[in-house]
């Protein structure tokens, strides 16, 4: 009996999800992605090299492109091109889920020092590039292109909040309006990756202020970072509005109506667009404890008049304040009031 009860609590009714405005996979694919994201624009975000090019052209802040390796023979002559680089990141243009990213934080004589502190030789770097070119990390194993970009110096503010990996902020932008955001913190369990299903911590962010509202790991509420023990309650993203404007501008660049923007905060340069995603996941709803649908519908109900980026961001900040939607509860950090 107890077992059955425990099992059943692992399920929710469709009406509960509907009442809470949870966007589901089928609806995301059928009513949002396929309707608002034109196929012809997918390559812009699926190919990170293309993303970099258009983002740079539009003067949207992003890590700088240093070099591109397109063919195997180039790798034989890569040594002189890497000579003057102490810190850099090698990425596959068509990688997914953070695969195939090599982060070099320093040089030690012959060796390259990875972010984990491990020293590797030049030939290891070359082999990594060969793997990228052969399509080891790309979707469907297609031959790929490797590119080298500048290393992001994560703002010290996050030093205690992230284990190994780079914390990033995911903003869902719908028709140019930011609709929901979360901060993703890598953990030991997630192996430095910022994917929630791999065990990263997702921190819901209030769209009005950039303050943390609640945090989840493995779909469970948490209050502290599991590795650093740092309380997550007081997180507040600096220059929040500027960050939202950065995300919202990506709509103009890509013309993708339903877009996920991954943003990192560089110590010196501030928020930078790391990558864009035409099929952003749904767990942002769990991290925020709020469903996406009411917000998407709110934007859909607006007139299609051209509105400036600033106006859109102000609209979102005014309408999508997370605390407001849950102000029946004292604070999401406290125990919830009985229903």
């Amino acid at each position, binding site marked *: 009996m107890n077992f059955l009860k425990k099992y059943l609590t692992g399920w929710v009714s*469709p009406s509960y999800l509907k009442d809470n405005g949870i966007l589901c*996979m089928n609806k995301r694919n059928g009513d949002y992605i396929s309707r608002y994201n034109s196929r012809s624009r997918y390559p812009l975000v699926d190919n990170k090299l293309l993303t970099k090019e258009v983002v740079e052209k539009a003067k949207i802040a992003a890590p700088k492109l240093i070099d591109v390796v397109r063919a195997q023979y180039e790798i034989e002559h890569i040594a002189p091109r890497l000579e003057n680089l102490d810190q850099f990141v090698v990425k596959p243009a068509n990688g997914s889920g953070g695969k195939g990213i090599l982060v070099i934080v320093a040089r030690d004589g012959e060796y390259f020092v990875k972010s984990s502190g491990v020293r590797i030789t030049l030939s290891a770097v070359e082999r990594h590039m060969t793997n990228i070119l052969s399509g080891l990390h790309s979707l469907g194993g297609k031959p790929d292109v490797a590119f080298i970009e500048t290393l992001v110096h994560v703002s010290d503010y996050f030093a205690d909040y992230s284990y190994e990996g780079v914390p990033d902020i995911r903003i869902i932008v719908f028709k140019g309006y930011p609709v929901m955001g979360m901060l993703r913190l890598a953990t030991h369990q997630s192996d430095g990756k910022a994917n929630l299903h791999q065990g990263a911590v997702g921190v819901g962010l209030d769209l009005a202020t950039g303050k943390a509202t609640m945090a989840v790991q493995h779909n469970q509420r948490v209050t502290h970072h599991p590795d650093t023990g740092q309380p997550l309650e007081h997180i507040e993203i600096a220059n929040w509005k500027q960050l939202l404007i950065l995300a919202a501008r990506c709509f103009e660049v890509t013309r993708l109506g339903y877009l996920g923007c991954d943003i990192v905060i560089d110590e010196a340069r501030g928020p930078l667009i790391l990558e864009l995603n035409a099929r952003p996941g749904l767990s942002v709803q769990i991290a925020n404890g709020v469903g996406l649908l009411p917000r998407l519908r709110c934007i859909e109900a607006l007139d299609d008049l051209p509105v400036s980026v600033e106006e859109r961001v102000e609209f979102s900040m005014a309408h999508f304040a997370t605390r407001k939607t849950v102000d029946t509860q004292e604070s999401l950090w406290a125990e919830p009031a009985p229903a």
Partner: protein
Amino acid sequence: MPHRGPFLFLIALLVIGGIGTAVYRHRAFAIPFSPDQAQTVWQVEARVQFAGDGSATNIFLTLPPDQTGFRIVESTRASSGFGYSPAYRDGQPQAHWSKREVLGEQSLFYKLEIVEDGDHVVPAIPPATRTVPSWREPYATASQHLLSMAMPISADGLSLAQQLIQIMSDERGDQNAALLMAEYQTATLLQNLLLAADVPARTVEILTLEDGRRRQDLKTYVEVFQDGSWHLFDPERGEVHERHNLLLWVTDAPSVLDVVGGRNSRVSFSMISAVRPALAVSQEQFGDFGFSLYSLPIAEQGFFKLIMLMPIGALVVVFMRIIVGLKTSGTFMPILIALAFLQTELVPGLVSFLLVVGTGLAIRTYLSELNLLLIARIAVLVLIVIGIITVFSVLSYRLGLIEGLNITFFPMIILAWTIERVSITWEENGPREVAVQVGGSLGVAVLAYLMMSVPLINHLAFNFPELHMVILAIILLLGRYTGYRVMELRRFAAFRSATNEPPAT
């Protein structure tokens, strides 16, 4: 939805078109909807015998008309030395044999295959006007008397016939009836009495179908036309309601057999019944059903039997992914596995699949250390899969496990890709994700296999390919389903626990 109307119209069109065509073909060609529907097939042999006297001979054998309740599937004849041509006389088909010079005892055979088919309905032809027979005395008076007895206690033609039969069959009955029956054949008498009373009636010759009977004769019955159909009467017992074993042989023609230029002519009937699959029977009658897969050579037919099952597999995959939300490795890989299962049987198929993929994975682990380029890696895997299959086949044959041979039914390229994909998933997302995806794929494959091996589905898919339009409509509808998947009800349970439960400390 801006295009909802046309979309629903298309769906309706597909469903109606598919089902409509199927029903039409079922009616027109008697293709059964169920695979094990059996039909009783009667083989009736009419044997014509006569003695030729050396002159030119014409033989006309009346054949049963197209009638309600029976379908004539096939007719053959055996008559060496005789010329044959089909003929038609007085609204009935006839077999016409002819020969210039016939001497001695002759036997001609005409064989019919007849199927009992309650769905086969032939509209009744209203009676032609018949001349009312003129009676000689004292029969005229007797018949009037008999009618005046039966008339008051009857309401219409049917009840009049019923009453007349009763009066005539009463042994110690009416003297007039006895008088008439001494003169006339009972059936002819009944017909004439009815005609005299202005009731449309006719005598018919019927054959009683009984398994294994030989040398049967036709019996003369009477039919009365009323309310748009003919009602059959046994002149000795009354109206016949149970007529599934009564075959009308002669309705309008004057006689069953006409031999010109021969003596001692007679016809007798033998019959046997057999129960045969309905499908085979209608195939015999209609050949390849006009435009159907049966017009293909046998080898292609076998191929299409599998192909026509693939939409079922596709439907299962679409359902399991869109409605249930199961993860599979490779979108339609489960269909191909399911098709292989169809040929290997389920358990041997599962075992060999897991064996090959498992062994392949172990070898693939070594390959990943070689840093091969992708295309080369896949090609190597194809060779490895072939190697594994060969070794397993030989090994299991040596050990006396014949099932091992079935491994060859799995498409090798698919196996190679499966190993590659599973191996990458293992490296990138861990064994848990592999278990989820392989489990999901095999689950969907097994479900698709179970669906595909239902005899009814097999039968419908091949014999009514138009029903795939209905499957298409269902898949189109599923493609527009934007509701929650079953697995999401579990996934988003986290939403509830995350928002309603206190944080862990």
